[in-house]
């Protein structure tokens, strides 16, 4: 007599049931992540639109908070260092890895960040955007400089669809500080970070003024910029952020929500036009 938990006969039905159960029980990784990679491989142009529709909500709260901080915070970099100065431009990069340690997020922080982008938290985060705005308006003394106005760019330049294989184009924006030219920007989202890439079609002086403006509007790491090798550290809604400039100050990049490795940053900046 066979054991009680042993099938007496290996029949077709039993095998089908077993396979069916196995396929149902498998814990597959997030389908959205796989789909975005497949789509990017098959049709990069469409993946940009899809990424905007499917992935943007995940980062909307953080990105909105970041832009609000850029627009509302009054803690000035100019009190610490001059971003537009030759010294900042010529900051040696050989010690970048050492200085980037401050950016690297500890494992426990990564776990927290991952937890924070769980689906159930997204809805909460989205609801909290209004709260963040209210908080910033109440708690931060608005500087004399007018905040950035941010709008969808009706005539965007050709932004790259994907940066570094993991940052997907989300939206082209126009940033304007009330005076001077509009700054063209692009928002990219990745698994764990958001990148704001800003450049201007205006002359170098105007672009440099944006960098100054940006510096005046984000909460900064208080260490001298030279010590940070040109990277500005800040925090948005509890998430680490990093800003830096490229192309002889003609372009600015802001990354929010770590972890971002030095290698990632270097490979991203290497792709800049």
């Amino acid at each position, binding site marked *: 007599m066979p054991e009680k938990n*042993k099938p007496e006969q290996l029949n077709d039905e039993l095998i089908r049931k077993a396979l069916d159960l196995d396929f149902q029980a498998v814990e597959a990784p997030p389908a959205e992540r796989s789909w975005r990679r497949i789509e990017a491989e098959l049709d990069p142009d469409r993946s940009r639109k899809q990424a905007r529709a499917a992935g943007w909500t995940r980062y909307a709260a953080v990105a909105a908070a970041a832009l609000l901080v850029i627009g509302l915070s009054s803690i000035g970099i100019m009190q610490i260092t001059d971003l537009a100065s030759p010294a900042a431009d010529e900051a040696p990069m050989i010690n970048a890895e050492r200085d980037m340690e401050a950016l690297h997020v500890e494992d426990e922080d990564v776990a927290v960040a991952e937890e924070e982008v769980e689906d159930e938290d997204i809805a909460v985060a989205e609801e909290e955007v209004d709260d963040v705005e209210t908080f910033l308006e109440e708690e931060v003394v608005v500087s004399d400089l007018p905040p950035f106005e941010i709008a969808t760019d009706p005539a965007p330049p050709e932004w790259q669809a994907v940066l570094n294989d993991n940052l997907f184009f989300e939206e082209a924006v126009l940033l304007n500080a009330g005076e001077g030219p509009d700054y063209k920007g692009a928002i990219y989202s990745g698994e764990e970070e958001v990148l704001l890439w800003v450049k201007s079609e205006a002359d170098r002086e105007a672009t440099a003024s944006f960098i100054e403006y940006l510096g005046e509007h984000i909460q900064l790491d208080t260490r001298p910029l030279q010590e940070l090798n040109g990277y500005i550290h800040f925090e948005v809604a509890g998430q680490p952020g990093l800003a830096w400039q490229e192309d002889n100050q003609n372009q600015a990049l802001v990354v929010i929500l770590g972890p971002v490795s030095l290698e990632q940053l270097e490979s991203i900046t290497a792709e800049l036009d």
Partner: protein
Amino acid sequence: MESEELKQLVRKNDNDSRRLLFEAYYRKTYAVAYNILRSRENAEDITQDAFIKAFQNIPQLQDETKFGAWLAVIASNLARNYLKREKRIHYTDREVIADGASEADYTEESALRSLEVDRVRQAIKNLPPDHYQVVVLQYYYDLRVEEIASMLKVSSGTIKSRLHRARQRLARELELNHDPACHINKGGEQE
């Protein structure tokens, strides 16, 4: 997914259709890759590659209603090739299957049945990749021996042989007292 809808999606093969096909077959394809590779990361990569290859080569699919099985073939071939490249074989000849009988309620027929299914499930997982592949294609995707042979580009005899050895292996794994009573699916020869 209904056959007619599946046909339309495969023929269309635009972004929206691909998305629907992906959603319908993602878990199943991942499961096939995972059961061969036993690595979440590698299985995810292979699954993505399988979908990309499938969508890029969709005109080669003769019967649109067999898209899922075709995808499983691509995924399992990719997974097998990966193992060959890595020279890693995950399965063992006689892996010990956990026996949950001591805690089971033997009076419940459903519980008994569940244990049976679970043991078979574990035994299937322990099959070598080429045996697992044909078992999935025949018993889950309901392909005939000739269809499996055509998809895998081998002879029907090879498929029959693999199925026979797979069932023998399952029977051994389950320590059955008599020959398995499986039948080769529609169109095939009964054992």
